[in-house]
């Protein structure tokens, strides 16, 4: 039992530390470190696809979702969930604090000022690439009817968020209701 916990901690420490590039990039790492390993026979590749599907249907980052779910399934106890979630969050949390403090302290230096000046247009591009990558079959459907409905919802949501003061959370709720009515 103890070894299961230690292996779980080791796996999620690595996932937290080396998980660059957002949730979907993290998935391959989770798959390699957790699925099909001898310490967690309950985690099969079927469990893994389940986690991905559930993550898409529930709020929250996929890294947290998978840690909570796999932690529970691998150990059979809530403690496993807590341990896995905590270990996936802790290393990047500490690194973030260090980076944030370092940057705040050297805010006036030419290196930091100049770097951020160059980073701002890049970040705009990163957000745009995230949007582009999500315009796929999983999010917009595969039949032409589905795609038309999805694009309509997307454009209506975009107009609402950009031109009105309506809260984005309300837009998500409204889109869910519309989806229920038209799909």
């Amino acid at each position, binding site marked *: 039992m103890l070894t299961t916990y230690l292996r779980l901690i080791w796996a999620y420490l690595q996932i937290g530390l080396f998980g660059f590039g957002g949730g979907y990039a993290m998935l391959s790492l989770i798959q390699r470190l957790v699925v099909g390993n001898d310490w967690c026979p309950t985690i099969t590749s079927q469990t893994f696809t389940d986690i991905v599907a559930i993550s898409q249907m529930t*709020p929250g*980052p996929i890294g947290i979702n998978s840690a909570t779910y796999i932690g529970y399934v691998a150990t059979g106890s809530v403690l496993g969930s807590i341990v896995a979630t905590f270990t996936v969050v802790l290393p990047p949390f500490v690194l973030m604090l260090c980076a*944030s403090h370092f940057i705040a302290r050297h805010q006036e230096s030419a290196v930091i000022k100049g770097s*951020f000046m160059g*980073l701002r247009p890049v970040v705009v591009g990163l957000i745009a690439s995230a949007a582009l990558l999500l315009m796929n079959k*999983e999010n917009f459907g595969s039949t032409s009817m589905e795609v038309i409905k999805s694009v309509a919802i997307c454009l209506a949501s975009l107009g609402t968020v950009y031109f009105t003061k309506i809260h*984005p959370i309300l837009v998500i709720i409204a889109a869910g209701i519309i989806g229920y009515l038209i*799909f």
Partner: protein
Amino acid sequence: MFEKISVILHSVSQQMVMKLKDNIYLQLFSTFFKIGSFTFGGGWAMISIIQREIVDKHHWIEEEEFLDLLAIAQSMPGILAVNISTVIGDRLRGIKGSVAAALGTILPSFIIILMIAIFLTPDTIKNDPTLTAIFKGIRPAVVALIIAPVITTAKSAGINLKTVIIPIAVALLIYSGWPVISNPVVFIVLGALGGYLYFTHRHMEQRMEEKEC
């Protein structure tokens, strides 16, 4: 007698409510709890909601600073949503603030997934036609929530006709999926390096002009 007690209790409880409302840590926690509860589709989808809550509503940080914090969050390993909340919490109230913000982001997802793991089998959710239909509607809206901040952040980043090529090239190259060149880390390093070189170059030019005068 009882009236007096009830009046005292009432004022005490009201004071406590006021104190709780003024508590910045609680505000940070509850704001990020709200954000975490509605973040479908990962950290990028949070940006619209964070902008509305942190920049527009609470005025905790400026739009331009938000962009810088986003750059830090993206260039560190780990879960983007947690990184964003950590750095915003830290900027506002130091380590305690970052703990409050990060916990707020993590808890909704933790509670929901734990409930599912304990009480439901994945198949019941996956094959539920109602849930499937609802999420077919939510997903395109989430994509819209990521497109909207592209336009707003482009404005606050001061993008003009000359510099607009940078975000477009970055987006298309990452989208291309080509090895090495589609890695976001490459562009973060190049962006920081290019910005630094441009900044020092301009600085030197200004000094030269001053000397000539």
